């Protein structure tokens, strides 16, 4: 986690200290900068990847509407983040640490010349972080696919990023954040297990429960319109995740390579495990299972990518697929409609990762932790992790429900039954995804 500290120094420097004193200012490391820019680009690639993944899973009449949920996040949060999001997340503590704030960071003005101590322009860091703020709300859409209005969605994610994502991001990744200073070496969340996956996963669950199931669910079969898209989407997500995780080292060195390695191994193990489970249970290894397993493996390793080794990555990947698979079975029992399993995969995988990583932390980390707080051990760290996870869940669920309530009341969130029948594409967007289906 040492990168956080470095960043945050940089940040407080960027935000507070006069920038013109360039005497001892950090020098740009062109290699680290190159990798951070590449990572930013890779995380951006995850958004079309997610649009393909989700878009392929819905019914033919809702393809564009579903893809637009991801693209809307790109557009809305893309602007929002630069305007106030970064200030709210990485500004110094405000409101007693509930959130960050710095007027200078509005429109990213005060970082115009900042090079972080790690040798990366703060702009690159801000944009990298901005991509996380884009992908997180986009993930939620999976839980309520095929039944929400575009207008409602746009309002929802605007509020959600401001009131849920930014605070969480501040707590976890700002040097003065709550979680960052828990226990010996802080709560471990390398690349966003809590901030990204748990928060979006449980928000999805809350939304799915609040808005109710799709008309006809679970009686009517709702077949994916295009599994090739889903598979390719999963592939692009895997590719982008290398930026997501390895980029979170905010460097281009051994830590980065380690993060990439465990990401690769966990994704592969997750995929293999899921397909194996399916083969054993139904004798049908499905492509949806392959895609889901890839996701599960990637999600679980996200918080852990800075502290586990290859063996741990294999273990976590396998456990994640089992848990996510189990969670989805449970969902089918309970009967709520988490349409594309945003909670089933991201929520579950995130929780498993954030807690499970404790058992696979590399020795050198323990040594450092023990140096700071003698006797620091698995149980102690597990408590810290559990606290972070728990707080995230409670906070995200409560805030999500409040926001959803407001959006439903003032803008309208769930579409009418008529629109649901016609489909989002034609009714809301006035388009049809596959002109090729008709003669034209």
């Amino acid at each position, binding site marked *: 986690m040492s990168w956080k500290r470095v960043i945050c120094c940089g940040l407080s420097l960027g935000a507070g200290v006069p920038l013109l004193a360039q005497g001892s200012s950090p020098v740009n490391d062109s290699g680290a900068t190159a990798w951070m820019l590449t990572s930013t680009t890779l995380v951006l690639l995850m958004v079309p990847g997610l649009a393909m993944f989700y878009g392929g899973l819905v019914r033919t*009449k809702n393809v564009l509407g579903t893809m637009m949920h991801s693209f809307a996040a790109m557009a809305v949060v893309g602007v929002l983040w630069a305007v106030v999001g970064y200030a709210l997340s990485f500004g110094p503590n405000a409101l007693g640490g509930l959130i960050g704030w710095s007027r200078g960071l509005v429109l990213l003005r005060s970082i115009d010349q900042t090079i972080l101590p790690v040798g990366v322009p703060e702009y690159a860091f801000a944009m990298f972080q901005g991509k996380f703020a884009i992908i997180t709300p986009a993930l939620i859409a999976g839980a309520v696919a095929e039944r929400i209005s575009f207008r409602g969605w746009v309002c929802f994610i605007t509020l959600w990023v401001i009131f849920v994502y930014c605070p969480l991001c501040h707590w976890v990744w700002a040097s003065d954040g709550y979680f960052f200073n828990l226990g010996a070496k802080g709560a471990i969340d390398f690349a966003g297990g809590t901030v990204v996956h748990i928060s979006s996963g449980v928000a999805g669950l809350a939304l799915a429960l609040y808005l109710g199931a799709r008309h*006809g669910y679970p009686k*009517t079969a709702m077949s994916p319109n295009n599994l090739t898209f889903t598979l390719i989407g999963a592939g692009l997500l895997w590719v982008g995740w290398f930026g997501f995780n390895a980029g979170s080292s905010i460097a281009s060195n051994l830590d980065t390579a380690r993060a990439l390695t465990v990401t690769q191994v966990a994704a592969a193990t997750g995929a293999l495990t899921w397909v194996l489970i399916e083969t054993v249970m139904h004798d049908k290894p499905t492509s949806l299972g392959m895609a889901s397993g890839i996701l599960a493996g990637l999600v679980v390793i996200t918080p852990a990518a800075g502290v586990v080794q290859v063996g741990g990555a294999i273990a976590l990947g396998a456990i994640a697929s089992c848990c996510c698979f189990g969670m989805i079975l449970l969902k089918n029992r309970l009967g709520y409609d988490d349409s594309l399993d945003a909670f089933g995969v991201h929520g579950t995988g995130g929780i498993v990762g954030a807690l499970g990583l404790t058992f696979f932390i590399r020795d050198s980390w323990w040594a450092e932790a023990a140096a700071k707080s003698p006797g620091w051990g698995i149980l102690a760290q597990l408590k810290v992790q559990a606290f972070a996870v728990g707080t995230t869940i409670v906070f995200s669920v409560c805030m999500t429900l409040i926001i959803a309530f407001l959006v439903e009341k003032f803008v309208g969130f769930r579409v009418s039954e*008529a629109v649901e*029948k*016609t*489909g989002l594409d034609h009714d809301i967007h*006035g*388009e*049809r995804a596959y002109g090729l*289906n*008709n*003669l*034209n």
Partner: protein
Amino acid sequence: MKLITAIIPEEKLDEVREALIEAEIERITVLRVSGHGRQQEIVVQRGKKVVPNLIPKVQITIACNDAFEDITVDTIIRTARHGGGEVGDGKIFVQDLNECIRIRTGERGGQAI
């Protein structure tokens, strides 16, 4: 026996199907078609109003015994209509069916429907 072919709006398929099943007409064949009639669906593409020549529709084909003709037709009319009826709600065509054969058993005629 009759062969009933109905052209209905896409979004009405589920409703029609459910109603038919309730009326115990459980065997149907459906497909996507595109239709041109009096309906004009205006689509806006990059700010330009476009009237597509052909509108996506769903065609339902049902083979039924003569006694079932009326209930089938009525069920479709009732459920495929938008409210009090809108242009584009579609058509039903009824034809004679000389013979119907169940491939599985080779049965013929009314009992094969």
